[in-house]
């Protein structure tokens, strides 16, 4: 199989060879001849790519001239784990950003892009490169349909795109190019399909296709369980104290923090304590090292509630932002998947002077995330603050064992820190604000708060909540005092330091600032919560789990293939005899057909197939044929099955002697479902065809006047010498030809009439006092049929090999004849004499010994296994053996 890159090459070649694609040519009158045009093809395909069907041109971006540039983007969020490629063109207004995780695969991609940019060639992006690298494809923007329409030559590629799209993507191409970035977004946000039916809906399809496996089923059950979590979980309330303080780079000294951290009578279960501006020094900024971390940590430990023992869960610091999470000692071991992460949004969009630090863990069935942030400063920069928030939300990624999680993926989120939102100066100046604050009319001032305002607008902290603020603004004070900032700037007071939350099951108990602390230009803030955590109730869980299993069982059983079998006349039969097909009387060589109908009455497509019983080699007996053996039926549709019974030379012998009966049970198997038995019943009317030579030579009466028991006795008798020398039926047939057809042209090569052969059959069965009916040709064919139907051929099977070996020598052939049972030898000599007689008339009938030898060799030495393929060599040797007896002079002397 050619590797994927050669397929890509094929597609590119097709593009290049298109007549519209020629260097220097003017295309659609849109571009001057001097400029060259380029198209950026984003090929979207399955991975791995195995055939051109997997490859298609997903998106088109026109590029004109040489304004096609590619750069590693430094402004737009580049850090250790990922980087951003910026592609600029002159036609597409937006810059194309491709954000990639670092790694060799993304390096390949980058190399491709750079090469394309340098050579001014078609540039293709294969999703192969992007697959699994980054889920952040949001940045990719493509030219809108309108822009593309301006360039008529692009239509060709548009068409190509449609044709090359695999079936499932048709919608995509219909919607046009401009919806592409949306698609990427959609695929990124996991579907919220936690509805029971949705989950089941997926399953329905896979079950309908018979793909449900034990493991798949398990996954479904997990999904169902997750969607019903509230039914088997109880809530357990935990006290959580959130604290935040911008310490303005100050050392803690001997400060006591218990007023901030241990102000409640009961000890909280968890602490999340956030600091900002822990250290404002250059060392901290450049090398992220600071002695203050230890200093503050000591004070924090001392300040924790004395009513309980605490242990540190995690500490995370980025420059001046520090978050410490504590838990009561006895809770530590219940915490799973404890992780910390940080994101810098400061200088160059990535430095740690601003940004966020976070800690997350899982407690019982609930995931909790704490985010301590320091957003952009300055009164007028509220949009930057919003942007910082978005950056932290989208970039802060926890890499867990089972995948990645963003902040938004947590059940409970506490987000706090120095958010730097101010009182909007356009609506309230510092003097008025201070006045209202003096009067403790906080609400009036808060009405002009930028954070409240931006949240109302839906620009930031969407779906987050904040409790009522009943405390003085936390900023800006003259350090060491409780006085408002007295510097030249005379800043308006503001609630820079805030605590917000998101998630069901969080109840705020209080929210306050601690004015007694005068160390910083900010006041510390803290808030106590009850966080309700979901805990599995084993009894309820078992019940729900069992219900889910039951539901799965029900669905599985409901979606098993279901059919009804409708046999004409079957409804009249007693129930237990349903599914019986009666063929009535069956005669030799007389085929009878019957049909029955299988209707798909279930909800899923059914594949049905007749299968073999146990160790049988065939699906049914050799006198039966089923058409079709397998079928596919859509729900509500039917399929007709035809059965044909035909007793011929293969099966007549066994039916005559009762070794086989006209009775068979067919097993109709529905794939992934049940089996249905269909019984086939018939009554065989015995005939001389299929009787052995030894039975026939002892049969005085016609076969119809012999009881089945007597026939079996005759067959078993193995009497060496019979009543007759040869079967009387043989004599009748030969005699008839003798009388009317010795000079008939093309005797034995003309096919007889079926109807006449059946009449001859009936005549032989009864032997009435009338001449044998039918033409000479029909009688000749009946003769062949009789000879061929002997279960043991004229030359018995055990002598076949000898005959073939001896065929070239007449003497040897004659020796073999002596080994034949008497009746067989008589038949052989009789037939050969008859054939010699025929050849004596060859001037009239035109028969040749070689032809007769070939024809009679086949029937007098017929194969034991009817399915043996014709073998020319064997046939030739058989003919040679017979030939000896037709042409040699001394024939009859010693026979």
């Amino acid at each position, binding site marked *: 199989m050619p590797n994927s890159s050669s397929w890509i090459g094929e597609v590119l070649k097709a593009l290049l060879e298109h007549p519209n694609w020629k260097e220097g040519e003017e295309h659609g009158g849109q571009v001057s001849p001097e400029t060259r045009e380029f198209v950026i093809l984003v090929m979207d395909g399955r991975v791995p790519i195995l055939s051109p069907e997997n490859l298609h041109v997903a998106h088109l971006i026109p590029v004109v001239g040489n304004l096609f540039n590619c750069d590693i983007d430094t402004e737009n969020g580049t850090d250790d784990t990922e980087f951003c490629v910026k592609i600029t063109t002159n036609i597409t207004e937006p810059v194309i950003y491709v954000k990639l995780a670092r790694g060799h695969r993304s390096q390949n991609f980058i190399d491709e892009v750079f090469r394309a940019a340098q050579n001014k060639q078609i540039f293709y992006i294969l999703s192969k490169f992007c697959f699994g690298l980054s889920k952040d494809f949001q940045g990719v923007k493509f030219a809108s349909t309108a822009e593309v329409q301006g360039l008529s030559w692009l239509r060709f590629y548009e068409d190509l795109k449609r044709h090359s799209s695999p079936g499932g993507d048709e919608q995509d191409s219909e919607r046009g190019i401009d919806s592409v970035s949306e698609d990427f977004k959609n695929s990124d946000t996991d579907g919220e399909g936690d509805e029971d039916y949705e989950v089941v809906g997926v399953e329905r399809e896979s079950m309908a296709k018979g793909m449900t496996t034990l*493991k798949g089923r398990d996954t479904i059950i997990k999904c169902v369980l997750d969607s019903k979590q509230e039914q088997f979980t109880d809530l357990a309330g935990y006290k959580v104290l959130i604290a935040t303080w911008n310490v303005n780079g100050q050392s803690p000294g001997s400060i006591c923090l218990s007023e901030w951290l241990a102000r409640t009578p009961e000890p909280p279960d968890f602490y999340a304590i956030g600091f900002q501006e822990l250290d404002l020094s250059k060392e901290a900024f450049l090398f992220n090292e600071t002695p203050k971390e230890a200093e503050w940590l000591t004070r924090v430990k001392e300040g924790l509630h004395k009513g309980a023992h605490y242990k540190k869960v995690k500490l995370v610091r980025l420059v001046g932002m520090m978050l410490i999470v504590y838990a009561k000692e006895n809770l530590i071991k219940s915490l799973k998947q404890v992780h910390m992460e940080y994101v810098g949004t400061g200088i160059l969009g990535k430095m740690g002077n601003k940004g966020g630090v976070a800690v997350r863990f899982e407690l019982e069935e609930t995931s909790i995330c704490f985010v301590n942030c320091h957003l952009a400063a300055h009164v007028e920069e509220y949009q930057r603050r919003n942007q910082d928030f978005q950056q932290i939300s989208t970039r802060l990624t926890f890499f867990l064992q089972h995948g990645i999680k963003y902040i938004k993926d947590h059940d409970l989120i506490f987000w706090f820190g120095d958010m730097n939102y101010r009182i909007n100066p356009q609506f309230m100046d510092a003097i008025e604000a201070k006045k209202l604050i003096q009067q403790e009319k906080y609400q009036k001032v808060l009405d002009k708060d930028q954070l409240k305002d931006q949240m109302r607008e839906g620009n930031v902290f969407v779906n987050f909540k904040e409790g009522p603020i009943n405390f003085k603004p936390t900023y800006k004070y003259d350090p060491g005092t409780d006085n408002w900032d007295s510097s030249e700037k005379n800043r308006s007071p503001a609630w820079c330091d805030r605590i917000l939350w998101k998630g069901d099951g969080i109840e705020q108990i209080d929210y306050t600032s601690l004015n007694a602390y005068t160390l910083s230009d900010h006041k510390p803030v803290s808030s106590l919560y009850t966080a309700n955590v979901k805990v599995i109730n084993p009894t309820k869980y078992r019940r729900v789990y069992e219900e889910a299993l039951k539901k799965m069982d029900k669905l599985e059983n409901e979606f098993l293939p279901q059919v009804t079998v409708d046999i004409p006349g079957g409804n009249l039969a007693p129930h237990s005899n349903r599914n019986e097909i009666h063929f009535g009387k069956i005669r030799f060589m007389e085929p009878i057909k019957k049909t029955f109908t299988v209707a798909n009455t279930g909800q899923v497509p059914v594949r049905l197939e007749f299968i073999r019983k146990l160790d049988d080699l065939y699906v049914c007996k050799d006198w039966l044929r089923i058409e079709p053996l397998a079928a596919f039926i859509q729900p509500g549709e039917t399929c007709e099955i035809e059965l044909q019974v035909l007793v011929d030379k293969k099966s007549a012998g066994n039916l005559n002697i009762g070794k086989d009966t006209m009775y068979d049970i067919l097993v109709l198997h529905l794939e992934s479902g049940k089996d249905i038995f269909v019984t086939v019943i018939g009554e065989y009317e015995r005939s001389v065809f299929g009787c052995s030579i030894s039975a026939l030579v002892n049969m005085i009466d016609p076969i119809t006047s012999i009881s089945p028991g007597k026939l079996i006795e005759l067959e078993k008798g193995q009497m060496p010498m019979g009543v007759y020398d040869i079967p009387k039926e043989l004599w009748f047939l030969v005699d008839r030809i003798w009388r009317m057809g010795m000079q008939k042209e093309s005797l034995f090569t003309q096919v007889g009439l079926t109807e006449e052969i059946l009449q001859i059959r009936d005549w032989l069965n009864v032997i009435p006092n009338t001449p044998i009916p039918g033409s000479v040709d029909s009688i000749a064919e009946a003769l062949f049929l009789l000879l061929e139907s002997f279960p043991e051929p004229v030359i018995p099977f055990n002598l076949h090999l000898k005959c073939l070996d001896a065929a070239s020598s007449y003497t040897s052939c004659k020796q073999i004849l002596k080994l034949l049972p008497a009746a067989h030898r008589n038949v052989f000599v009789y037939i050969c004499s008859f054939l010699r007689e025929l050849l004596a008339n060859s001037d009239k009938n035109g028969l040749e010994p070689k032809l007769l030898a070939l024809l009679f060799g086949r029937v007098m030495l017929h194969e034991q296994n009817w399915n043996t393929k014709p073998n020319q060599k064997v046939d030739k040797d058989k003919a040679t053996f017979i030939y000896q007896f037709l042409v040699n002079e001394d024939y009859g002397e010693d026979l």
Partner: protein
Amino acid sequence: MASRPATASGVQRPNGATQNKLCQFKLVLLGESAVGKSSLVLRFVKGQFHEYQESTIGAAFLTQTVMLDDTTVKFEIWDTAGQERYHSLAPMYYRGAQAAIVVYDITNQETFARAKTWVKELQRQASPSIVIALAGNKSDLSAKRMVDHDEAYAYADENGLLFMETSAKTAMNVTDIFLAIAKKLPKAEQAGGPGPAQGRRVGLEQDTPRATQNCCIYTT
């Protein structure tokens, strides 16, 4: 937004108390015609009972899961035709089965005799490790009883069979007999998950004996 389906915590049971092993077994029902094989299955799987249950012409297939303390057992149930003329096809269904329920009718002595021959056939032809249960069905018709409970019990005991008198009509002992089988089945710990549902194809691919292929996977 509160309960996200994707939360990893949702499926990781921290204390391991609810961890379940999932096992899949092929179970076949055998017995004389009209002793109530299909009715037992219908009662067990759907909780229903039909006074005039149609006779099974073929082999019906249904699945049902039962929960034990530490294991979830999924039965793939083959309910066979009881008519004598289909007897020769029975091996298609008990071959590769890990469990069998041989059913007789307590009001009909002949069906008990037939049950014994089924047990003999299973002991001779089926997988040596097959778990066999004997079910004396129609126990609601005790007024017409022809098979003595103690006699059947003694027979089952001698032959190492599970034994219960059941009633598909009243549901008595129906779930119990399946549960008893589930408990008795060996839950071999096998690494790796099983392929597509086993035991459904009864056709050509059955050459390899699957007696020991009870599939167990761990699930959380």
